[in-house]
């Protein structure tokens, strides 16, 4: 096993893994681009595979939403597109090839998923549609994609933010393409949303969770080496008193061993 100390990505994966319950169904996209791919795909996969090897042997990993518990050891490189032939040929337990497919999305079959966004706000709303006015935007982005479904039909959502800067963490997103907690849980209820919503926001600086009753984001832990001032300075809304916030929990030697020896021996997912 590599003697290199645990990376932040490995630490994030271990934090996530501890939050998954046995029997859950976790949905990852297949994100592309360096940082986006690590946050949106690699960390989630490592986290789920770690949970499966520890307390959650009945967890189902849905790679690209389609491939049920694929055999990553059969991959020569990590594919970088969702629906091409490499994935078709990857050994798995089931393959979703149609909509509606094996998972009853709207019944709430998906326990959790992972989103990233260009903006996220204090209520946990996310935006991947536009910066500036919708009909004449400063920047037109890709569109809502599956964010509306992630943030309402999945039982909970982990928002994975590869960049933590003031322009990403804003008071109010320019366009709500995934709904957080406007008005808290009561507010979601009034919007007709029976379950779901963001659980955590994971960034290079910290992990947020939510006061879901009151409907705002709060810092759950700060990553080692990041100061409260750094964090507040990079965030476009007030984080309150950060003095009691713990440092993000390190992973155990056993967790690190499982990641490096069993899950990702070829460093195909996370380099260290």
């Amino acid at each position: 096993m590599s003697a290199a100390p645990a990376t932040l990505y490995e630490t994030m994966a271990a934090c996530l893994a501890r939050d998954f319950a046995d029997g859950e169904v976790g949905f990852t996209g297949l994100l592309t681009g360096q940082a986006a791919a690590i946050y949106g795909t690699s960390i989630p996969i490592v986290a789920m595979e770690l949970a499966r090897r520890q307390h959650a042997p009945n967890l189902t990993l849905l790679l690209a939403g389609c491939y049920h518990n694929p055999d990553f050891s059969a991959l020569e490189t990590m594919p970088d597109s969702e629906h091409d032939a490499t994935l078709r040929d990857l050994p798995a337990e089931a393959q979703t090839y149609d909509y509606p497919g094996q998972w009853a999305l709207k019944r709430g079959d998906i326990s959790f998923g992972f989103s990233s966004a260009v903006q996220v706000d204090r209520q946990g709303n996310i935006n991947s549609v536009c910066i500036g006015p919708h009909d004449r935007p400063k920047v037109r982005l890709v569109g809502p994609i599956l964010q509306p479904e992630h943030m309402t039909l999945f039982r909970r959502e982990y928002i994975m933010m590869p960049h933590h800067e003031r322009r990403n963490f804003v008071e109010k997103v320019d366009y709500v393409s995934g709904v957080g907690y406007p008005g808290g849980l009561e507010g979601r209820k009034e919007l007709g949303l029976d379950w779901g919503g963001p659980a955590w926001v994971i960034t290079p600086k910290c992990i947020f969770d939510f006061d879901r009753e009151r409907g705002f984001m709060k810092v759950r832990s700060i990553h080692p080496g990041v100061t409260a001032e750094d964090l507040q300075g990079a965030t476009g809304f007030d984080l309150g008193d950060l003095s009691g916030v713990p440092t993000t929990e390190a992973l155990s030697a056993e967790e690190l061993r499982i990641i490096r020896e069993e899950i990702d021996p070829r460093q195909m997912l996370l380099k260290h």
Partner: protein
Amino acid sequence: MAAPKSKLMSLTEAVDMVPDGTRLALGGFAVYQKPMAFVRELIRQGRRDLTVVGSANSYDIDMLAAAGCLATVETSYVGLEKYGLARHFRRAVEAGELKVVDYPEMVSWDRFRASQEGLKFWPIPFLGGNDVVTYNDAIKEFPCPITGRRMFAVPAADPQVVVIHAVAADDRGNVVLPARRLLPQSGDVLMARSCDTVIVTAEKIVPHSFIKRHARLVEIPSYRTKAVVEVPFGAHPTPVLGRYLADEDHLAEYVAASDSADSFKGYMDRFVTGPADHFDYLDRIGAKRLAAIQDMDSLL
């Protein structure tokens, strides 16, 4: 890695998951691939006041009606195809002992699609003038929110428990279908996606490696399944595509015995309440007949 949980149980244990008064859907379609071993076990355990919601039904409903297990049936068809009316069902309805809520055939499928979608209704534009609406207060008229045209909201099927009979499953509840499936098998897939308590009886419990070899055909993954029971010939006397054909001799015997409740007593004693278990039932059918109805799926 710790071993995933086995959901394997006995037929008796699985039937325990269906208490009196359950709103139950039985897989298969018309006279095809019905979970008949499960039906017989329901009768053996004396279940009462069941509501069966389905797409098209036959021997399943008829036998449950004969045994007095049913309060209500919601479906498009109860009959025995070439053998005509389902006699016990017919008698129970004519006697006012069994309530039927009639739905059109494709609308019956739509009701399960509604449940799959987490919707409480399915929008149907073509029911005006049909007595399906006259006798069903649960169907609500409403205007199309876009055009204003007359529409009917048909209630979701919303079964509390779904039971299907499949060719093969592993002990985790991954269910595999033959590549060349037909409508009855697709109906099973739909039903299994419309409910959170899905019981699968299967011809064969296969190792997980078999599942992985047929991943493309695993239409019902483990997280959709609550219980798995190995029941070879579990649909007998109805057919299982790719495994065995309908047992025409037995079906004729069933129909001949169905002339009256009295004449049916002998059939029930011999094939339902009498057998100690499913294998005793199969022994009473006999190896020769079971061998004769074998089917061959593609060897490709």
